[in-house]
């Protein structure tokens, strides 16, 4: 029997779906790039199929399949696929001035919610109970939504400091609606800031079904090729989680795209501290690697017009990529925003098409050597000056991304990597690794498993010590639950953020533990 040592990674991007197979030594065995289809299953099945057809890939040797996708958020644009959620907030009579989901667009709110309630209970900033948990009100609410609720989101005031009321409410849900109705608890999702944490918790509850259907899509694609592999799902910190964990925390999948490409860039280039530019078909993302992982954004994130508390990789986006349509005759010369998307090989000038794109400009400027048609001298003259604009905007984005760091190495990945030339300000050296065009799929394929936990405590040495231990234990447990090998989990990051203008000096301690997949 052949050794079973292959891992498959798929990253579904906006324009292209990339997929790779790597072996036990994390060497690339095979890669494909296919256009992303409107229906989720199409491009995943196609990519897996083409990999399985590759003579270097023995499908029976594949043991793990990792999927990264932006689709978790796409669902919100057309919210018919989301679960119907009952929203339970614990904290009355406080908080009534802004009821749950008050900041959601009506359409999304109607699609997601079967009802909201605010009941008495919750905690004070120091963890003491603010009042008794109003069990009867919870029971009445659950009676009302029973039958309609496909999930329950629970957010209690100051639950990141004291989660007891959320846990007690979860017990009541379980007793009354049964174990089959999934419950999302806000203290497991976010930190202080009730509305943003509650919003993320509701979104999480709504996306449980998306996680399930993603799993089914992947399962079908694998089964069709005779691949019997355990599925993992990419999350937004550059690591993956097992199915069971993804079903509980689907919201963590949002933003995995940039994380995957940055992790892939780090792996392919060997650069662990530096900047990464990912040039796609219509957009370019600039981010920063710290110890091989994407640096998280310091701010809450807006998704579907709602502010949510979870941390995405910090990415500075530029609205152009390899397929972006340009007009050098305009004054000033126009770059985008239209893109030929995945039709570059039909429409770009260098492929004999009629549309001038940034890829044509890259060829005109001697940065790339692709295509089947020579550009006319007039086109070369007109197009190459556009690269100066591109360089200026890239240098600006890199400068903002790298922050106070001195000049950094720059890794360029993605299908349009030919657009980027050496000599940008703030960059020590430019690395365009081999297989850069499938970096995001490689990032998924090599990803370890992680768990993260937060604790808030008074800013005193002994309290900090205790909170660090508690957070570490919780992060370990979550990493193992997410699928990490219990014997090889390590704390990779401890972050302590003092909280401004809390009553007592307080600090939030966040611990991240990472390990290889068990």
């Amino acid at each position, binding site marked *: 029997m052949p050794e079973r040592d292959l891992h498959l990674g798929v990253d579904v991007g906006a324009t292209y779906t990339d997929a790779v197979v790597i072996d036990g030594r994390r060497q690339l065995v095979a890669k494909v790039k296919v256009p992303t289809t409107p229906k989720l299953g199409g491009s995943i099945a196609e990519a897996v199929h083409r990999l399985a057809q590759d003579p270097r890939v023995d499908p029976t040797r594949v043991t793990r399949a990792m999927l990264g996708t932006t689709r978790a958020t796409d669902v919100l644009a057309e919210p018919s696929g989301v679960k119907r959620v009952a929203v339970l907030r614990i904290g009355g009579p*406080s*908080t009534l001035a802004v009821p749950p989901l008050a900041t959601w667009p009506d359409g999304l709110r109607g699609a997601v919610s079967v009802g909201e309630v605010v009941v008495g209970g919750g905690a*004070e*900033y120091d963890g003491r109970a603010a009042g008794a948990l109003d069990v009867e009100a919870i029971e009445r609410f659950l009676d009302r939504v029973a039958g309609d609720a496909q999930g329950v989101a629970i957010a209690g005031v100051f639950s990141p400091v004291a989660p007891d009321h959320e846990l007690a409410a979860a017990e009541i849900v379980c007793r009354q609606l049964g174990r089959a109705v999934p419950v999302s608890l806000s203290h497991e999702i976010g930190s202080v800031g009730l509305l943003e944490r509650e919003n993320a918790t509701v979104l999480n509850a709504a996306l449980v079904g998306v996680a399930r259907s993603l799993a089914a899509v992947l399962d079908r694609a694998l089964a069709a090729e005779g691949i019997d592999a355990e599925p993992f799902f990419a999350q937004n910190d550059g690591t993956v989680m097992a199915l069971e964990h993804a079903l509980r925390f689907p919201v963590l999948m949002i933003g995995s795209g940039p994380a995957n490409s940055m992790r892939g860039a780090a792996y392919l280039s060997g650069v662990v501290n530096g900047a990464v530019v990912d040039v796609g078909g219509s957009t370019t993302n600039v981010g920063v690697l710290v110890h091989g992982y994407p640096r998280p954004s310091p701010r809450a994130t807006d998704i579907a017009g709602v502010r949510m508390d979870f941390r995405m990789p910090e990415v500075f986006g530029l609205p152009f990529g390899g397929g972006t349509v340009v007009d050098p005759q305009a004054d000033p010369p126009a770059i985008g925003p239209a893109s030929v998307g995945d039709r570059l090989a039909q429409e770009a000038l260098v492929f004999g098409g009629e549309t001038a794109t940034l890829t044509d400009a890259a060829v005109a400027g001697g940065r790339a050597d692709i295509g089947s048609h020579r550009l006319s001298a007039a086109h070369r003259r007109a197009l190459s000056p556009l690269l100066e604009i591109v360089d200026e905007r890239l240098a600006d984005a890199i400068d903002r991304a*790298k922050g106070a760091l001195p000049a950094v190495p720059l890794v360029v990945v993605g299908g349009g990597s030919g657009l980027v030339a050496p000599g940008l300000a703030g960059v020590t050296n430019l690395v365009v690794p081999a297989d850069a065009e499938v970096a995001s799929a490689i990032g998924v394929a090599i990803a370890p498993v992680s768990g993260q936990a937060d604790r808030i405590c008074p800013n005193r040495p002994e309290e900090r010590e205790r909170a660090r231990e508690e957070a570490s234990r919780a992060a370990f447990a979550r990493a193992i639950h997410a699928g990490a090998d219990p014997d090889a989990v390590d704390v990779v990051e401890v972050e302590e953020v003092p909280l401004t203008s*809390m009553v007592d000096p307080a600090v939030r301690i966040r611990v991240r533990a990472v390990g290889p997949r068990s």
Partner: protein
Amino acid sequence: MRLDASNLPAVARGCAVLGTGGGGDPDLGLTMALRAVAEYGPVDVVPIEALPDEALVVPCGLIGAPSVASERIWNGDEGRILRNEVERLRGRGVAALMPYEIAGANGILPVTWAARIGLPLLDADGMGRAFPGLRQQAMHVAGIDASPLVLTDARGNAVVVYASEVSQVERLARSAAASLGGVAAAALYCMTVRDAGGAVVHGSLSRALALGEAMRAGSAAERVAALCQALGGTVLIEGKVLDVERRIDAGSLKGSATIQSAGHAGLRHLRLELQNEFLIAVEDGVVRAVVPDLICVLASDSGEPIATEWLRYAQRVSVLAAPGPALWRSAGGLALAGPSAFGYDVAYAPVGHEAADARA
């Protein structure tokens, strides 16, 4: 002037500008206010002449930790509780509420409270900008007593504070807020309309609205220019943030930042010192602007004001300076809210009239 869904976002934005980097995020207050006017109708903003002389004006807002209010969000009924308690204590009717601080979160918060009890807001505040202290109030300068100060958590608890002198107000009010769960709605410096005439900064809400409206103009650069004009100020520098240093000291954010001018010729550097708010701007040893004048940092790509806690390396910014309220530029005002009140050993020089030899 009436506040409703059409102009509240502009008021909130104006409050953020007047926060000069501090004062807290008005977003939550805006969300509340929009809900309140949708449900209870618009809020009238009136000049002092429109109110009966013997009725009371209630300056109000948040006391305590804004981050607690972002978690234990308001009930909404705080204004009613404060109004009822003040009427009971003072034995006369309340004619209007007023923000005690027009800046940041406190500027917009009383809109919700006023909407829900059908009272107008006096077009005024106690600061004309953001300040950290409860005695940096126009009412204090005018000799109005901060007591009796009423605090409530809208959970059935209220505390009334009588202080022997104004230096005790801060301490007592903050410990009362701490016992109410870290944050409280407060009414302080309550006064008759007759007394309020000479004891408040007039036109504050109109000003916030005008500033917010100015920021509706076209491109980011146009917004910065329009805002500068509306403030009657000058652009100190346009460039990028070269470094930022911040620390938390006794519950407030302190630090400094350096802005480097854009372009390659004749590099200039402007240093900003911050204590919750941007308080002093120094270039080549010369104070370009100092508290109580306003120092606003705006994002070059959007024209939006940037809070001190969100200023980051390499951000492209425009720094504006504008005259602070006249009250604070007087000798008495400067003693309470001038550079020396914040520990800066520099003489106050009004924006535009620059002083040499800063030792900031």
